[in-house]
């Protein structure tokens, strides 16, 4: 009986404590790492190699935040999540931020208690088929079985697109990326649909990439970006501006190799925290942007290292080039 009373009292206290919320930044600094939700493996965006090291453009955003807040880009605890699990994990506080090729939509931004901190990859939904089918346009897909991953905006886009174009299809839904891909490989479906970046990533992983064709139609806008919980504006600013720091660094032309060079460009000095006091506004040390560029690199470095034209995934910058170079990537100024 005594035991029971003790236990009950203890649980009451625990339940009471759950209501109290500290700031995410002080939480992160206290525990010494950033918990970052990533995919269960999407080459080039977030995937772990055989030694358990995570790489990818989404991973680099997590690392940039760790470099900014803890001064060490390796202090990230990666939490692999399925598309279905990701929002609940963030809402419940299991992770500090989500960087998992997640599409920014008004519903997600306004009704889930979450905030999108920016866009780190402008994507769009596409289709991939086996070349042997002889299909050259998505408009020829009437009657096809289409493999798709559960819990994504892709499911909604596909239904809208099918309705708008009068195309009838069967959707074959799976829980994980891996099962979706294995369904497509086995022939359970004729078509695989997801964000075009994902299609290129999967095609690169196929035994013979030339057996698969990515169709030219892009049926949606999919701005992918990092997400944080609503209600902690300081943390929101840190994540948003860590990403912006990478983009601005590319604009100015600072790379991880040239970051230590002192120049007389005032904008560059401001970004590197050698003048001005922007770091105080976000509650970090003055070298926070320096650490991001030093340890993670600028946006272009991250892009070319993980998904660029010289990697097996081979994606051209396209719309993801800087605004000054024909793309739409644009960071508000650091001042």
């Amino acid at each position, binding site marked *: 009986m005594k035991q029971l009373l003790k236990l009950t009292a203890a649980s009451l206290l625990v339940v009471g404590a*759950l209501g109290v919320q500290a700031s995410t930044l002080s939480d992160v600094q206290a525990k010494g790492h950033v918990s970052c939700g990533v995919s269960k493996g999407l080459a080039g965006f977030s995937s772990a190699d055989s030694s358990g090291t995570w790489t990818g453009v989404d991973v680099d955003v997590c690392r940039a935040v760790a470099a900014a807040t803890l001064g060490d880009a390796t202090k990230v605890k990666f939490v692999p999540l399925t598309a279905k699990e990701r929002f609940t994990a963030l809402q419940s506080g299991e992770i500090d931020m989500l960087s998992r090729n997640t599409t920014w939509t008004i519903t997600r931004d306004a009704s889930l208690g979450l905030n999108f901190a920016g866009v780190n990859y402008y994507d769009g939904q596409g289709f991939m088929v086996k070349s042997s089918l002889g299909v050259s346009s998505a408009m020829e897909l009437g*009657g096809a079985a289409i493999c798709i991953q559960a819990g994504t905006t892709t499911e909604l886009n596909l239904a809208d697109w099918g309705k708008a174009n009068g195309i009838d299809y069967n959707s074959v839904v*799976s829980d994980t990326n891996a099962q979706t891909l294995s369904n497509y490989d086995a022939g359970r479906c004729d078509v695989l649909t997801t964000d075009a970046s994902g299609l290129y990533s999967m095609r690169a992983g196929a035994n013979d990439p030339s057996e698969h064709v990515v169709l030219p139609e892009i049926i949606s806008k999919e701005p992918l970006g990092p997400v944080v919980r609503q209600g902690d504006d300081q943390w929101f600013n840190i994540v948003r501006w860590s990403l912006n720091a990478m983009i601005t660094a590319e604009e100015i032309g600072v790379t991880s190799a040239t970051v230590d060079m002192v120049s007389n460009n005032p904008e560059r000095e401001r970004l590197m925290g050698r003048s001005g006091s922007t770091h105080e506004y976000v509650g970090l040390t003055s070298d926070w942007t320096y650490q991001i560029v030093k340890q993670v690199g600028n946006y272009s470095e991250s892009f070319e290292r993980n998904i660029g034209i010289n990697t097996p995934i081979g994606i051209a910058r396209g719309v993801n080039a800087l605004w000054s170079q024909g793309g739409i990537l644009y960071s508000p100024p650091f001042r």
Partner: protein
Amino acid sequence: MKKLILDSLGKSKHRGLNFRDLLYNNEARAFFFQVITFVLVVGLFYTAIGNLFENIEERGINTGFSFLNNRAGFDILPFLGNIVVDYTPESSNLTVFYVGLVNTLVVAFIGIILSTLIGLLIGIARLSNNYLISKLAGGYIELFRNIPILLQILFWYNLFINVFPHPKQSLAFFDIAFLNQRGLYLPKPIPEDGFLFVALAFIIGIIAAYFVKKFFKRKHELTGSHTSTWPYTLGLVVGFPVIVYLLIGSPLQFDYAVLGKFNLKGGMAVVPEFLALTFALSVYTATYIAEAIRSGIEAVDKGQKEAAAAIGLSPIQSLKLIVLPQALRVAIPPTINQYLNLTKNSSLATVIGYPELMSTFGGTVLNQVGQAVEILAMAMLVYLVISLFISLLLNYVNKKMEIQGR
């Protein structure tokens, strides 16, 4: 309790207000601690739920059930659920809930029937005098019982989609039914005017067969002369509707599947997700049911079998008339548990994308809406109600089968 307090008050009349009596009274102490525990448990839940809502509100997550009326906007793998509730992406989230519910019920229903049949067969075979049969049954049980069900579901599903041919090389059965990696395609019956009479004839046939059986059973009890009833049953249940069907002029058309550009079109497609899931669940659950049946049979006294043999019953008759009715009494309670397990395990289907409750409503809708608490509570309630219903039904059967007081 009232009496207890009155008692102690009565005593206190003589000796003044005496709490010592209450303190050392076992019943009073037990009551006191029960009240404390109750208050603590209720308090704990109250605090927890209060906290939950406070946190949800603080984080700006939507609450309430209004999302159920919103447009769903996504497609669901076409199977029975879509047909029964007429689902399109324009339907509401509540409709998705019904689609998932129907698909869950279908798996549970067919899985329970299949696993019972397989379990009964294997349970009896396990005790066979034939060495090969009993060892095979034993091997079956040990193999399927000891592999996690999730693994089995994934195995059968991936086997199915990899082993069977592409739709263009479907295995055809007289151009009526087709089997390929995308499922089993059966002809889809399309009833026309007048088919109602055939259905009516079928129902009348079943009722008539029941009375015929009752009549001959009564005759058996009165005169002792036994008559086989199966020719009558067959005639009434199958023959009668067929005659009606032919008389009205075959009011039933079939829609056969034909090869389209990518897939077979038309017909009635039984998707591989369903086949693999039902098969895996039945085969797995059957091992436990077989063991329950075996324990039931072994619990029947040996003398019963010997007595049956002594009065000249054949082994089949002895099994059917003497052993099984007694064995089932022992076997039913553990079998109920297995039915419940099967129903609950059906939620594992989300890994292969069978559109049951947890993969449609608890999966896609949850992800689009983000209201985990409401959605999961609804799903939990459904499983609870299904499970309670099954155990209610089988407890009734159990009661019927129990030994009547003699």
